[in-house]
């Protein structure tokens, strides 16, 4: 990676900085808060329009045997099997400490590329212990809002 400097004599307008952050995933935006006071303030004042973290959560309705996987799951699995990069946001909804809560649940094993080995091992364990099949679908949440946490929790009843 080249480390060429990119400088300017002018102050960078808020609008441009926001436009840049809109291209980034949430983790990158939050990392950028650590750059400077000004970046931190600009991100905080606009976090409502900045990207949210994509989450794959569980819907605890039982899945019948002949029910098809949702299209996006098939897509991700196909990509994974072909060795192509998959959606990095998959699985990231589960904080490591929370994972043990989800016993007896099944998650379609869709692999991303931004997690560590222990995280995956834990996920596999849950999948292996599974007895019930579940639909998986995608929502986006921002945990800064109390109501979002409630929605999240209401979907994640432990069997």
């Amino acid at each position, binding site marked *: 990676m080249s480390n060429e400097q990119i400088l300017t004599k002018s102050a960078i307008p808020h609008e441009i900085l926001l436009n840049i952050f809109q291209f980034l995933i*949430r983790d990158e935006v939050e990392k950028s808060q650590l750059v400077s*006071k000004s970046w931190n303030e600009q991100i905080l004042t606009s976090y409502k329009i900045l990207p949210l973290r994509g989450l794959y959560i569980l819907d605890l309705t039982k899945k019948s045997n002949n029910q098809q996987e949702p299209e996006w799951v098939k897509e991700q699995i196909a990509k994974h099997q072909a060795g192509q990069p998959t959606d990095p946001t998959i699985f990231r909804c589960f904080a490591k400490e929370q994972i043990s809560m989800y016993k007896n649940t099944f998650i379609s094993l869709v692999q991303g590329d931004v997690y560590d080995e222990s995280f995956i091992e834990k996920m596999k364990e849950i999948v292996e212990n599974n007895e019930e099949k579940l639909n998986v679908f995608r929502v986006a949440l921002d945990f800064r809002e109390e109501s979002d946490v409630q929605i999240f929790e209401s979907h994640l009843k432990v069997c």
Partner: protein
Amino acid sequence: MATESANGVSSPELNERDVVITTNDNRNFTVKIGVARVSKTINNMIQDLGESLDLSSGIPLPNVDGPIFEKVLEWCEEHKNAPEIKVEQDPHTRERKWFTMTEWEEEYFRKFLSHLWDLAMAANYLEIPSLYYYTCQKLAERIKGRTPEQIREMFGIEDDLTEEEKAEIRRTNVWCTY
């Protein structure tokens, strides 16, 4: 001469005519109207002036300097017939979809890498959506995967957050690994 009015937006004949554009360092650029019009700001000026437009006396650009305008013009020349870009985002996460750039565009940004901020500001002022969004994407690409320290170094930004403030940011952003 009314037929030569600059209001004839789609007139191919008008697009071939020259207009003089003066940057804030008093440099004059003689540009084909069809190229200058890639900038919506300049296009509006041409249209507003209409028949009173004196193509030889020049359109002033008080917010752009010569060296940057030269680079912007290279983009305009290449994109004079390009369709409007479409800005798309994921309806759930609001993440913006990344644009696929042509080899020419990639090379353009490689060449002018150290001027990305100035290009973004000029493209914003001149209202050239393709250049503006693509430059912002290139800046996002520079931020992606780099540590806050590397970003500060790259952009010459002072590290003015206290350790307490940084700790607080990390505490509120539980996913943040930096």
